[in-house]
Each structure stands twice: as structure tokens, then as C-alpha cells.
């Protein structure tokens, strides 16, 4: 707890972090206004609004979301939340983690602060939990907390009580989606920080991972569309497969699945498996990196 509290306080001193947090609160406001508007506008307009949102979510192929002709909260609210997590907050997460995580452990290496921690009654596991909890706190501040606040506000401004029965599972989906986003990303970012004394290398590695993922995704999508155009049999590369090569798209598919926006397919199993393997592997390497520094 002390390590996490200290990490949160130290990170809060960063001007850019505070700016990022302020900026990332705007999408939550937009999300809240959308829910408010949906509860008020004509049913026809609701359907048009959500068809465009479904396209934005990348919902296509066999998983195409059937947009009901009448307004259904159990479909629309999760879709709105999925988009909130998928677009503004995932990008904000990359920036926020890029601001906090790289210096988190590498600074302790450089200033030999790790020796100060471990001469106290704490172990490597507690140290790493404290460091990760700092990231979890800030990531929850831009994802879980605003999403839950929007949900509660949505309940509050809705015209009748049926809204609760329609959307009771949404907070659970928000929590699961947050876990899927927060734990693997903080684990990877801290692992990078634990590899070097130079935080800029860790920051570069973190950003490069996302950029390379995006580039790979778009390159493979281009190849797939060219193959589709050339042969009648279609491409061997499906969108589900391509998404596995990009961390951003992989997380996006998982979040869409958690919010019920897309249905289950084998690509989802693969995405969950990859996420689990990456999380466990980076946690083990993170532990090993910090532990091995102690005997130097």
C-alpha cells in the first residue's frame, strides 16, 4: 500500500499526466451525454445513431450485430461502453502508461532505490504489487471509474426503473473489461521498465509495441483485401486472425466480446490465450529481473 500510495503521489506531480487525465475525462462526458440523449430522442434516430456506432466498433462478418428496430438498452448501452473503452480510453491508456510505467522501476535501478526498498520488511512480490497498483489506479481512473459513473448517471437520468433490469450486467462487464485492459498492459509496461536503467528505452519499447501492432494490422488487412479481390475463394487471413498480431486490436476484440458486442468465435479464444500467456510470461520475467538485481 505504501509503495502504491507513494507511486501515485509521485506520478501525480507530472504535469503531462494531469493534462492527460483531464483530457481523458471528456469522452466520459460525451458518453454520458449520449446516454442522456438516447433516452430522450425519437426511436428512428436511435437506430441510425447505433448503426454507425456498430460499424465503428468493427462489428462485421458473422458477428454482425443485429440492430433492433426499437430502442433496446441491453444492446445500446454496452455498445456505447465498448466504444468508450475501445477508442478514446485505449489510446489514452497507451499514453498514460507510457508516462508512468517506464520510469517506475528503471528509476529505482538508476538511483539504486531498490536497495532501500528491500532493506525494509518487504519482498519482491510486494514491491511489484505496489508498482503495479500505481498503474492500476490511474488506469482505473480513466476506464473503470468514469464508465461506472456514466452508468450510475445513466440510471439516474432514465425515465423509468426498467433501465436497471435491462442493464444490470453492465457494471460486471465494465469490471471484466477493465481487468482485461489494465492487468496485461501494466504487466508488459513494467516488464519493459524492469529491463533497463534508462526509462526512455522502456518508453520507446512501449510505444513501438503499439505502433508496430497497428502497422502490422493495417499491412495484413491490405494483403487480405488484395487476396479477396484477386481470388474468388477469399483470403486465408480473416479479421479475427489479423487482430491477433496487434495488441490494440486484440484487446479491442476482447472488450467487444466482454460487452456482448460480438459473439464468440475461435479468434476470441486465441485472443484470451495470447493475453493470458503474455501476462503470465511478463509477470515471471518482471519478477526475475527485479530479483536478479538484488544480488548485484
Amino acid at each position, binding site marked *: 500500500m*505504501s*509503495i502504491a500510495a*507513494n507511486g501515485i503521489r*509521485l506520478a501525480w*506531480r507530472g504535469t503531462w499526466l494531469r493534462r492527460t487525465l483531464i483530457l481523458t475525462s471528456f469522452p466520459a462526458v460525451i458518453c454520458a451525454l449520449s446516454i442522456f440523449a438516447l433516452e430522450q430522442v425519437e426511436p428512428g434516430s436511435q437506430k441510425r445513431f447505433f448503426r454507425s456506432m456498430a460499424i465503428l466498433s468493427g462489428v462485421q462478418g458473422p458477428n454482425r450485430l443485429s440492430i433492433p428496430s426499437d430502442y433496446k438498452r441491453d444492446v445500446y448501452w454496452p455498445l456505447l461502453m465498448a466504444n468508450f473503452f475501445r477508442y478514446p480510453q485505449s489510446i489514452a491508456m497507451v499514453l498514460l502508461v507510457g508516462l508512468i510505467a517506464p*520510469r517506475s522501476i528503471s*528509476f*529505482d535501478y*538508476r*538511483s*539504486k*532505490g531498490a*536497495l*532501500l*526498498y*528491500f*532493506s*525494509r*520488511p*518487504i*519482498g519482491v512480490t510486494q514491491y511489484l504489487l505496489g508498482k503495479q497498483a500505481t498503474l492500476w489506479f490511474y488506469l482505473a481512473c480513466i476506464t473503470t471509474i468514469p464508465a461506472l459513473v456514466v452508468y450510475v448517471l445513466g440510471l439516474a437520468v432514465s425515465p423509468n426503473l426498467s433501465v436497471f433490469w435491462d442493464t444490470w450486467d453492465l457494471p460486471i462487464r465494465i469490471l471484466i473489461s477493465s481487468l482485461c485492459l489494465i492487468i496485461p498492459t501494466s504487466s508488459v509496461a513494467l516488464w519493459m521498465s524492469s529491463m533497463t536503467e534508462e526509462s526512455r528505452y522502456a518508453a520507446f519499447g512501449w510505444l513501438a509495441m503499439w505502433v508496430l501492432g497497428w502497422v502490422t494490422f493495417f499491412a495484413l488487412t491490405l494483403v487480405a483485401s488484395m487476396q479477396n479481390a484477386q481470388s474468388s475463394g477469399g483470403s486465408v487471413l480473416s479479421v479475427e486472425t489479423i487482430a491477433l498480431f496487434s495488441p490494440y486490436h486484440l484487446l479491442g476484440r476482447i472488450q467487444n466480446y466482454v460487452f456482448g458486442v460480438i459473439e464468440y468465435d475461435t479468434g476470441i479464444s486465441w485472443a484470451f490465450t495470447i493475453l493470458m500467456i503474455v501476462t503470465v510470461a511478463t509477470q515471471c520475467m518482471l519478477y526475475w529481473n527485479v530479483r536478479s538485481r*538484488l*544480488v548485484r
Partner: protein
Amino acid sequence: MQPIIQLRNVSKSYRGIQALRGVDVDIPPGVIGLLGPNGSGKSTLIKGLLGLLRFNVGSATVLGLSLPKQRFAIRRSVGYLPEDDCYIAGLTGIESVAFMAKLSGLSGPEGLRRSHEILDFADLHEERYRPVESYSTGMRQKLKFAQAMVHDPDLLIMDEPTTGLDPNQRVAMLERIRTLARKHRKSVLVSTHILHDVQTTCDHVVILTAGQIVRVDSLDNLSRPAQAGWAIETCGPADAFFEALTDHAWTVSRRGDGSIWVSRDGAESPDEIWSLAAQHDVAIASLQPARNSLEQIFFETVRDASETPLANS
């Protein structure tokens, strides 16, 4: 007297280096100087005592608590001042010390109160509100001292505590160590290369060479020469005086450090030395009981150890 540290046949090797070889020692309470050449295993021993690394063989207790099982309890009762220039980046001095207090289990307000107290004792005043990155080497040394002491440990392990301090600050740091030991009844294990610091501060000395403890004794015992005698300094030439001393069955010897020692079996007072000096018109600048210097003890011990084949090798 219950030893503060007990090591039984402790060995440690890593990366192909045998850092400690069958170390077997009881370290008594008080101020203890841990001496040894570079690479003799001092840092490994200290890290082992804190439970930061595990000994391969043997058993160890610190303040009656066994390693590695009770390492967290040991760290609660032991303060550690590392040799390295280490700090938590981004914090001010007072925040650093209060943070260490929290990590040691003190509550927030109590930790802050203790932090201010110990920073006053460490002579770090308004500077405590500055970021630690802006501190000079001396200030950082004081800060490390405060961090090590903030949770009021029974044993303080200090690795090179006077490194980087100017003469005044060095004296002040040694005085702090003495105060802790004499007034607050703390035990202090000081690992240093500055033999003078050990001579002026410590009660006991532990000498470690090539991973083995080669000498453990009180400084009094170590300093006492095999034969009682006196160290003499004269003003001007005094050859005739020394010849007269030899004629009166005194042994006159010139030591490696340039001082002249005179001794005789059964001699209990220097009265005869004074009278012979008066007879030969020699002015004595200083006459005091002869004591082995720690430097001499250290060099002789290390030399003897390096000439003796290692038991384990």
C-alpha cells in the same frame, strides 16, 4: 553477553565466486568494525545478514532471529545504510525518510514525527524540504543515516558511512555513531576502509579476508602489544639516551610508522625512562603506553591470512 550476530559455517558462492567460506563467528553488542580488503566478502556478508541473498550453507541469526525464515522481522529490527548513493527519485528529504518509516511499518503521523526527529539528529535542517536529487554527497550520506535510523532499530549496519564526507562532517558522523552506542544502547556494525574511523569509534573488530573471518577481538585486546612498553617521541637527537636505555636492559625498537618503542620484561612504570632522559639532557615530547595501531594489525592479519593456505581450498 548475548551475541547480536551468530554465524555458523556460513558459505556463499555465486557466479562462480566463493564469496564466503565457512564463516563461523559470534559478534558481540557494541560498535563493531568490519574490516577487509576489497572483494573480501563484506558486502556479501551484509546482504546475507539482511536476507537479501541466501547463504548456500550454514546457519545465521541476527538479534536472535534466524535467517532466512525471519528475514522480515530482522529488517524491522535492523537499519541499513548502504554504501551506494541510493535514493528514491522525485521525493524530498523528509518524504524519503517518512516513506522508509512507512515501509518499516510505522503509521503515517508517527513516521513523520520520527522522520523530523531523526533528521534533526542527522543535522539535516531546511535541506529536508529539497528534492534529494539536489543533495550534495554529504547531505545524501546524512539522509541515508536518517533513513536507516527512522524506525528505531536495535542494530544499525553501516557500509562506508563516512565516504564522501568532509573532515568536519566525518567527525560529526562518528560522533553520532558513538552517541547511538553509548547513549541509546544501539549496536552498530560499521564496514569501512578507513581504519582511523574504526580505531576511534569501535569496541570490537572483525577482519574478513578472502571470505573467511581471520580475526575477531576487542580493540583493546588487539591494540595491546605482546610486551608492555612505551612509545617515545623526543625533541632532537637522542642516540646516547637510547643507548643508555639498552644498557639498562630496555628493548628499543623503531616501528614501521616511525615511532620508537621501549619495553622491558616486568616494567610497570616509565620512571626510569624519565630519569635516563634527564641524565642525557633529552627533552621528551611524548611518552605514552605503546599500542598497536589498527593499521598495523590489519596489514599483519591480512598478510598472514594470505600466506596461510585456505582451509577450504
